[in-house]
């Protein structure tokens, strides 16, 4: 019991609310659909969360720094094509697996060059890149799908370690590495400082360009890693692969309590945000809501949470008798 208490106290209010929300909607969907609360469906939800967990991790870094990348889903798409092409060319699966993160990191480098070196606001710069990458995907694929790829990569990554899928271990490793970087190295402190105020961070001697550059490259690399798992699971790549992932990631990270104004981030919150989003999407589909409604739900949830956060903040301020803002 005491251990449980300690575990609970490690979670912030926001994370507890998310956890509660996950439980509530799980119970609601379980009572509405007989298929929802089955081990198979739980596995499906976990499986569907893999890419978003990795991309959400990168997005957490970007948002905490006051940045954003709306092209990140398409970066995963392009990396997936690279992995697929490598597999199609009968490359060794281990090599093909590395090509994903490598391509992602390379594209992250491009994003960083445009946004950081070009000093273009991240939202505008990555929106431009999104357009370019979408054309690039079309050109590279030639209007066709990559499908029926060799099974080598699938077999390699399909193995489990101690009964748990390899993807889970990789995700845990990635989160641990980022957590250590954030909490135990100057990088994390600098990143959050830039999120608070880029000007003040620069004045206090932080190498703003280096830190921002690194964050964009890491985010790209994580998207590339997600691409490797995507190809291993689905063994095909189409034009629209990854097109909704950027919004999903932004929504999940914001849900998780990372402040878009920078300076505050929560990795546990991101994980819970991803799970909440994927449970919601899966459950809505199972109770018969057409998939066209998914973007409406995600967009609406994003707005609702941000609005409620502000309103609740104001309420508690006025209760304590503080001047509002």
């Amino acid at each position, binding site marked *: 019991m005491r251990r449980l208490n300690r575990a609970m106290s490690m979670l912030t209010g926001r994370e507890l609310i998310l956890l509660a929300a996950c439980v509530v909607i799980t119970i609601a969907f379980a009572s509405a659909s007989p298929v929802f609360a089955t081990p198979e469906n739980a596995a499906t939800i976990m499986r569907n969360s893999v890419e978003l967990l990795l991309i959400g991790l990168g997005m957490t870094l970007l948002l905490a720094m006051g940045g954003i990348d709306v092209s990140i889903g398409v970066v995963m798409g392009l990396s997936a094509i690279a992995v697929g092409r490598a597999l199609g060319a009968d490359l060794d699966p281990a090599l093909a697996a590395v090509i994903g993160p490598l391509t992602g990191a390379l594209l992250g480098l491009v994003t960083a060059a445009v946004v950081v070196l070009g000093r273009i606001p991240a939202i505008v710069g990555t929106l431009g890149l*999104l357009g370019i990458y979408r*054309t690039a995907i079309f050109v590279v694929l030639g209007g066709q799908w990559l499908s029926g790829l060799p099974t080598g990569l699938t077999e390699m990554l399909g193995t489990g370690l101690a009964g748990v899928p390899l993807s889970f271990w990789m995700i845990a490793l990635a989160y641990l590495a980022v957590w250590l970087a954030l909490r135990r190295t100057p990088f994390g402190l600098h990143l959050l400082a830039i999120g608070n105020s880029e000007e003040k961070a620069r004045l206090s001697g932080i190498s703003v360009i280096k830190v921002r550059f690194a964050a964009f490259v890491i985010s790209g690399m994580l998207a590339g890693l997600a691409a490797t798992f995507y190809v291993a699971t689905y063994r095909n790549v189409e034009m629209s692969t990854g097109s909704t992932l950027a*919004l999903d990631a932004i929504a999940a990270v914001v849900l998780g309590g990372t402040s878009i104004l920078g300076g505050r981030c929560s990795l546990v919150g991101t994980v819970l945000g991803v799970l909440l989003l994927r449970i919601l999407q899966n459950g809505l589909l199972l109770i018969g809501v057409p998939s066209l409604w998914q973007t409406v739900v995600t967009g609406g949830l994003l707005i609702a949470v941000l609005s409620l956060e502000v*309103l609740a903040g104001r309420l508690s301020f006025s209760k304590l008798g503080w001047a509002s803002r």
Partner: protein
Amino acid sequence: MNRLRSLHGPALVLAILAVLWVVVLGGLFVLKPTALSAATMTTVLQFSTILALAALGQALVILAGGAGIDLSVGGSVSLSAILAMLALKAGMPPLLLPVACIVAGLLLGLFNGLLVTRLAILPLIATLGTFFAYSGLALALTGGAPQPGVPQWLLPWGRGTLGGVPLPFVSAALPAFVLAGIVLVFTAWGRWIYAMGFNERSARLVGIPVDRTRLILYGLSGMLAGVAGLVSLAWFGSGRPNIGQNLELESLTAAMLGGIAIFGGRGGVGGVLAAVVLLVTLKTGLLQLNVNTVWQVGIVGALLIFVLLADRLSQRWR
């Protein structure tokens, strides 16, 4: 010197855009001489109308600063057209269709404005959320199918021309730009917009109602999107749930290309209109040359980045 530069700024932008436009037309003439005709120009202006209206709203929102941006313009265009058509289907008198479409756009824009001003949510996140909500709703409410049944009397306006210039362009886009230009340059309210874009703190200190002005501008952007939705209805004769696709990227590019500073407070609307015509000429030219439409989004994206990089470099060299 400062005065000289501010006088020359807009003129310089227009001159550069004119040169680029001639280059694009020249390139088209070399590659496909038959494509260059009066009819092509009519087509360009017809296609320009919707983008022009969306880009004007985008430009005004950005001009007012405060990290202002309206990523939801495309979604607002689609959703206002769809909402108006659904209302028509539900029994609304057809005469009210234009009003319904414009009011729907206005409300969608005001919702953005409330999120940004009253709740102080960062514009890029607020309008990213509403972009997905609006464009998603337009698709979800219709199942992705076009909504037929636009009243016949609306079509002559959407498809007619006046001396080779499409009617929607003459009667909607052009007056909107002229009006916006006059308001920005000659009225106190217009000066407020520049002032708050240039330095919001000072604007607040001198008593400019920054939040109210910004709320109105987001509403205006939505209303212009509603007008654009109406133009699409009168032009195609049906409500297309994806009519606003890519408009967020294109309107941003047009605004940046037209000399609006991304951080606000600098730029004019004349350049935006010129940039819209340039963009659409480029797109039409590519279409004439049988280049796949997927290339358009990439070229527009590259143009957006190029313009912003060029702006940075020119500032450094100045």
